[in-house]
């Protein structure tokens, strides 16, 4: 029996440079968290793509439902007053 079957899936996040957010780059299978980090290093940073790696068991992520995209995100569409460009400021007024 090959024990590597059913190795859990991990999502991989990489910080490209100091000061940037970690960004999702892909996923991989590993026996445990440590192996996941080592494999992520070999798989996703062969060309200096990162300075830091996070791995998260895929099962631990809770996602919004694509079927609810409209009800979740549409309500923000008509609230244009949340953006600074909504407001006309007279030219004479500086540094605002």
């Amino acid at each position: 029996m090959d024990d590597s079957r059913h190795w859990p899936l991990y999502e991989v996040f990489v910080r490209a440079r100091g000061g940037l957010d970690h960004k999702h780059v892909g996923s991989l299978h590993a026996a445990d968290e440590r192996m996941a980090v080592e494999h992520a290093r070999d798989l996703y940073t062969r060309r200096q793509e990162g300075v830091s790696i996070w791995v998260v068991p895929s099962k631990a992520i809770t996602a919004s439902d694509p079927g609810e995209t409209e009800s979740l995100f549409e309500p923000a569409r008509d609230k244009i007053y949340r953006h600074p460009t909504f407001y006309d400021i007279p030219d004479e007024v500086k540094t605002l």
Partner: protein
Amino acid sequence: MYTQELDVRGADSTPAADPGVLEQHFLARVDAEQKIEPKEWMPARYRSMLIRQISQHAHSEIVGMLPEGNWITRAPTLRRKAILIAKVQDEAGHGAYLYSAAETLGVSRDELIDQLLSGKAKYSSIFNYPTTTWADVGAIGWLVDGAAIMNQIPLCRCSYGPYARAMVRICREESFHQRQGFDLMLHLARGTAEQKAMAQDALNRWWWPALMMFGPPDASSTHSGESQRWKIKRISNDELRQKFVDFTVPQANFLGLTLPDPLLRWNETRQRHEFGPIDWNEFEQVLKGNGPCNAERLAARRAAHAAGAWVRDAASAYAEKQRLRAARQAA
């Protein structure tokens, strides 16, 4: 790559909508150049077509390590050896990105690997040709990876998000593969008469199989219609093949090598090259498993998988031991 394992809140409670409406919505999104993501509704045919294409692509990357891997121990210099190791490692990486993308469609990694090892799955016919000389490593990089890039660049814009994202990463890396191959050919072509003859011989053997990589002619391509409708495939086989020939002819001229096609010539009116007929019977035979190395490739892949089993078992046992130890300490 946002996977099937990922827990979508409320996904099971979504009421079954009218399939006709769902399909209309899906097509409208594809037409609007929006990306389809794993948890969204998609036609069953779209899903199965993608699983087939992405997994074949992944298998091709994995089997593709074998013809060149044969040359790692025999690379003529340390520099060339380091380059070849890096390239072969990239191919393993490409296989892994693509298996991940396929898994988002609901198929498991284990199933896909079983399909490859059992001989049920197909992979690119090109890897069933032998690599008999060092120049083959150059010809593969230049022509085979070159043809692969031509096929893959349009896939970066394919409608399925995880596949498109994997292709972006792969294309970035393939460019190194093609250039190192051309560089190798250039060194041989500018070397001794023997080295140049070796480069010419490799070109003679790889040219036609490379042209076959674009798949059957448009007139007889079975999957093209739906694939183009769903924006998985964006450019036809023949069109890509033509583009590849037009790109490659001047490169061969630069090398001072001759493409093995007496009918090859520039058509001034059509502003493109004409080339001789491709032996589709040979393509069919290789695809059916009767190529020069089909059995050898599969045997090598199976042997590698079996020989690595103890490593995977040890890693599983170690992970389990660590889990138990952590649990004991917490208790």
